[in-house]
């Protein structure tokens, strides 16, 4: 008899029952896809037709709308998944509905699949149809090039996978709970739990471990890392789409896309599989209860409260900018009590029962405190970690004064831009085998020897162990120790070649890349042909190999900078590209061939002396007293006195014996001095001494 009950007829009936939602999704898809696209293209196309805009721009606008860049549509997909999932499985929260549906001669499994598949159809059909209409609109406007069509067709299945992942999560939340509100909160918890735990871990390391390598782009970025989102069954789709978009722009290595897509499929299978299994096991009487499986109430509460309390502690500590960690502990423990009460209220909706499980609250508080103390007391020995030298294969050192000037490739290890200023990227690119000087610095750092504030220098280190593991650390080391290590490192050609990307970044130099020489005289563009640029680089590289740390510090006359345009980043539609500039290539006095080449081929004398006749004015920002004092000097005599005492480095090095005075020279031709002009301590012109 049962076999006669058609699965598809049941699906059709479900679609009829939820026809309001079917209509809503169709309308929303139509408005958000073809309609908005047409509105956007209308103005763009009229500008193109009027000759005010290149067609390439219109193609790019169209591409970004039908592609992964359309984040609004990604959000819509997630919201639709939540609404469709909740509407399809909210019957699990109603006793009356369950009495009806579960009494029918249909197994729970079959009923699950009926609801599940009809829900998928509700989204997939209107979304796909509207996506195809968008493609037709693009075609009608002549914007659907072959590449864009392939790209747009790739977006459709990914958006559907994104829907399936969020949809499965919402269904799982419905199955796990007995009330719709709890299901929505449960969905939120499932969506954010693992990224939250990972982010709290990063935050705790960041707060309590002084040697933890901080993300230079800010702690919030570190906490909201795209890779963390791969652990979210709801946001994994968006994270993968984000990676795919970067990949489409050649900004991302494919490794994480494969991992991300794997995670997306994994979450779809896990959420759907677990939801199906639990839907069969779930007792009908769970309807209208807080949780469908009452034994999980306590576990869920503890698992939620601990990371949320720690996250609150981190947030409060961050907000207060306090070095004293007591606020972290106060906020975390306070949140344990508060959140436990909130969760109990959600469970029982009875104010009298919010502190019913006092022992549970106490144990949660103890567990939270134990985790916090684990980090606070550094039980794992994170800050004192130093692998045995024989276990280390390679090491790298990040010294911001040098490495901070250059972009290093991400080497496919991160989800960030293809090129990055981050210490992590620099370290991965500058690993050397002869690492004794770095190891010695790290040893002192790990020992916790604290230099004075004035002499302390922050460095970052990477240990690449022989067993394949990688460890990053950040140490505060003494300036003299660092200088000693740098002197030793600069005598190692491998270090120099890896540190200066100009040695290995040949492919990135496009004919449109521009080169500048910067010095006290300002910034001059090198007017060289492509061949001359190549010739210049060959000369420069040869001399740069011979540079010593002393040369860099004391004998650098000017710096050479290059505005790099990556061919891979060239946008064929916009006919432009993202360029980035590196300005830390030193031109030392001993680079005679380089200096001669610049003089001969570019007509630029980097060794020329600056006299008061070349300078129109000098602006002095005096920080020696607490208050900042700004002085504009136009008097040639005073300018002469300044130039007489002036020291100069083009590399923005903060020399240790310099006065706290910023100096800006404006030349007669309007150029402003580049780099860092400074006065040595006690060697300030007399007329400025009065200010002391």
């Amino acid at each position, binding site marked *: *008899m*049962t076999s*006669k*009950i*058609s699965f598809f*007829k*049941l699906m059709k*009936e479900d679609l*009829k*029952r939820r026809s309001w939602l079917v209509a809503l999704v169709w309308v929303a898809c139509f408005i958000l896809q073809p309609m908005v696209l047409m509105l956007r293209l209308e103005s763009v196309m009229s500008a193109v037709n009027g000759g005010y805009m290149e067609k390439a721009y219109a193609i790019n606008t169209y591409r970004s709308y039908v592609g992964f860049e359309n984040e609004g549509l990604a959000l819509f997909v997630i919201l639709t998944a939540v609404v469709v999932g909740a509407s399809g499985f909210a019957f699990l929260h109603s006793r*009356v*509905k*369950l*009495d*009806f549906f*579960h*009494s*029918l*001669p*249909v*197994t*729970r499994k079959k009923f699950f699949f009926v609801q599940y598949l009809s829900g998928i159809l509700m989204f997939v059909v209107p979304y796909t149809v509207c996506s195809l209409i968008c493609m037709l609109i693009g075609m009608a406007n002549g914007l659907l090039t072959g590449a864009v069509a392939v790209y747009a067709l790739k977006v459709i299945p990914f958006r559907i996978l994104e829907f399936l992942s969020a949809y499965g999560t919402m269904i799982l939340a419905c199955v796990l709970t007995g009330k719709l509100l709890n299901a929505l909160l449960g969905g939120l918890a499932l969506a954010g739990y693992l990224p939250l735990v990972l982010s709290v871990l990063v935050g705790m390391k960041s707060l309590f471990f002084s040697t933890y390598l901080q993300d230079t782009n800010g702690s919030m970025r570190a906490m909201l890392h795209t890779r963390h989102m791969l652990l979210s069954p709801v946001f994994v789709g968006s994270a993968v789409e984000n990676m795919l978009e970067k990949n489409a722009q050649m900004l991302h290595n494919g490794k994480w896309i494969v991992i991300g897509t794997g995670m997306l499929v994994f979450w779809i299978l896990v959420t759907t599989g677990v939801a199906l299994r639990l839907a*069969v096991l779930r*007792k*009908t*009487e769970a309807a209208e209860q807080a949780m469908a499986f*009452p034994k999980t109430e306590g576990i869920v509460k503890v698992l939620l409260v601990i990371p949320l309390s720690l996250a609150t502690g981190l947030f409060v500590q961050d907000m207060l900018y306090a070095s004293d960690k007591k606020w972290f502990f106060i906020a975390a423990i306070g949140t344990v009590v508060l959140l436990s009460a909130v969760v109990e209220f959600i469970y029982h909706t009875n104010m009298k029962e919010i502190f019913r499980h006092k022992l549970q609250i106490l144990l949660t508080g103890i567990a939270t405190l134990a985790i916090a103390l684990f980090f606070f007391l550094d039980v794992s020995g994170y800050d004192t970690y130093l692998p045995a030298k024989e276990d280390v294969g390679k090491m790298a050192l990040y010294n911001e004064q040098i490495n901070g000037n250059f972009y290093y490739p991400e080497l496919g290890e991160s989800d960030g831009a293809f090129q990055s200023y981050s210490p992590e990227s620099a370290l991965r690119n500058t690993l050397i085998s002869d690492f004794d000087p770095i190891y010695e610095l790290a040893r002192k750092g790990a020992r916790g020897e604290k230099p004075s504030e004035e002499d302390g220098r922050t460095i970052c280190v990477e240990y690449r162990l022989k067993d394949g593991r990688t460890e990053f650390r950040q140490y505060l080391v003494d300036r003299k120790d660092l200088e000693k290590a740098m002197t030793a490192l600069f005598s190692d050609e491998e270090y120099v070649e890896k540190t200066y990307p100009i040695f290995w970044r040949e492919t990135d130099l496009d004919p449109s890349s521009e080169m500048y020489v910067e010095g006290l005289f300002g910034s001059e563009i090198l007017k060289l042909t492509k061949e001359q640029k190549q010739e210049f680089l060959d000369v420069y590289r040869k001399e740069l190999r011979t540079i010593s740390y002393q040369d860099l510090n004391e004998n650098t006359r000017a710096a050479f900078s290059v505005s790099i345009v990556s061919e891979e980043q060239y946008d064929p539609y916009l006919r432009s590209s993202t360029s980035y500039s590196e300005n830390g290539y030193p031109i030392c006095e001993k680079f005679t061939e380089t200096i001669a080449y610049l003089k001969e081929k570019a007509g630029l004398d980097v060794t020329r002396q600056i006299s008061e006749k070349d300078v129109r004015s000098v602006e002095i920002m005096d920080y020696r007293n607490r208050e900042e004092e700004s002085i504009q000097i136009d008097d040639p005599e005073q300018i002469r006195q300044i130039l007489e005492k002036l020291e100069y480095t083009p590399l923005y090095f903060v020399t240790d014996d310099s006065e706290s005075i910023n100096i800006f020279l404006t030349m007669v031709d309007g150029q402003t001095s580049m780099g860092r002009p400074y006065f040595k301590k006690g060697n300030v012109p007399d007329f400025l001494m009065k200010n002391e």
Partner: protein
Amino acid sequence: MIEINGVNKSFGALKALDNIVATIQEGSIFGLVGTNGAGKSTLLRILSGVLKADTGAALIDGQNVYENPEAKAKVCFLSDTAYFFPNATIQTMEDYYTIVYPAFDRERFSELTEKFGLDKKRRINTFSKGMKKQVSVLLGVCTGTKYLLCDETFDGLDPVMRQAVKSIFAMELMNRRFTPVIASHSLRELEDICDHVGLLHKGGILLSKDLEDMKLHIHKVQCVIPDPVKEEELLTELHVLQHDKRGSLLTVVARGTRQEILMSIEDKQPIFSEVLPLTLEEIFISETEVAGYDVKNLIF
């Protein structure tokens, strides 16, 4: 046949059904009576496969009903609160029932809705509570299932409708294999419909008997016997369940056939005697008092 073999069901700390053992024979209208919270709904929900028994088994024609579509296809459950899809008309529900119960008799359903004056195209949410119950019963009857489990379905129906439904049930019983099980908290609601009644109390079955059988063996008699000695003899002779004397009028509820009781009374030379009709309530009071329960506190 429905067999309930040692069924236990708890909701958290609350024991809803305690080792229920009962049999519901085919071809009878079975009334399940009990106070609120006695476990009637729980038992029906187990019998319809909505709930899973913690231990024990509910068998429909020898098959375990839980998650067994074959067994469930023989059962239609009408919950105490009838569920209709949002904005559904009778037609909408009929269409759905036709899909899930392939033996659904559309022709009979149309005939019955017409008889009851129910407009098939009208939205059910505009119907009165009683009309919704009518729709629910008619849908249930027309599913063509062998067993129809009605949870408080008749409570609140007006006498005319009750009579109409009763006649539909009678018709179904005549025309096909049909066994309705009707749960109610009031015996009065069941006495004119059921022919077999089970009494549930605190999760256990106190009593399960055939009504006709009970009615044949319990009688209420009023008589006036002038001789007090003979009156005493009568009360000793009869298997008296209850007796009451007001003035010279003696009222006796006794176990036995009508003929046996009347013969005993005639023997005592009464001035007057007559057999009075017994209500189901009175039969139950008598039966359960014998079992040691004060049933008045349980079901009235």
